[in-house]
């Protein structure tokens, strides 16, 4: 019973799922950036498809990460110290992941050059935010305080 009610299962879920949005958002932005500079239409499309797939997987992975994190933090959405900084980066990152995914799904191939550049900037911003949230998450676990 403790497995389900205690922190262990949530720690495992958080540890297992939290790396998905961090890693996948980073590679998604890089894939799309490659897709933006490559000339061959066939290869370009494949990079954009990979960027979309990794973005979706990262966004889906963010939901169990957020749920388990909230339970571990006893539903604290702010907090102090490392937890506070974790949340400062986490909430904008979570919102940006969802917004980017929806935008990509709605727009699909009908994007302009300017629209794509704005998307790419936002994607790298999301990658930075989610990585910073991950860094401060590590500080909660391994920091000395």
């Amino acid at each position, binding site marked *: 019973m403790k497995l389900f009610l205690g922190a262990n299962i949530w720690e495992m879920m958080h540890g297992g799922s939290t790396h998905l949005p961090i890693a996948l958002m980073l590679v998604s932005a890089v894939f799309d950036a490659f897709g933006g500079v490559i000339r061959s239409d066939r290869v370009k499309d494949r990079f954009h498809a990979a960027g979309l797939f990794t973005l979706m997987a990262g966004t889906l992975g963010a939901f169990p990460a957020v749920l388990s994190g909230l339970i571990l933090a006893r539903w604290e959405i702010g907090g102090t110290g490392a937890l506070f900084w974790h949340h400062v980066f986490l909430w904008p990152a979570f919102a940006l992941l969802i917004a980017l995914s929806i*935008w990509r799904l709605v727009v699909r191939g009908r994007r302009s050059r300017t629209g794509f550049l704005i998307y790419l900037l936002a994607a790298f911003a999301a990658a930075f935010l989610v990585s910073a949230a991950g860094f401060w998450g590590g500080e909660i*676990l391994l920091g000395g305080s």
Partner: protein
Amino acid sequence: MKRGLFEFVAGVLALVVAAVVVGGTLGSAGLVRAAIEKARSESAISGNASQLSPIVAHGQKLFAVNCSHCHADDATGDEGPDLHGLTKSDERIKTIVTNGIKGEMPAFGKKLQEADKEALVEFLRSLK
């Protein structure tokens, strides 16, 4: 619809959905936390020291002997940090108690049994 306008409308839609999802998450978490705090405060009003559960009382005793020297008698912190409202998991607290923190806190792994560490965690969770 022109491509630029279509992208803009899609962007607005995406931001609205993201705001609803994240806002809903934050609001729900706030409601759950408020309910937990309310239950805790009601429990504190109806309870007193003599009504501490045996495990919390045992943890309190262990705390007084082993921890209060650095964390103060009321656990509000002295040489060591305040232990009220800890956000670390039970397992993490027990690991810190067992292994200590290099250069900051001694290890109690050899001194305290598993049941003692669980009692300490229960006592720390009972702190208001």
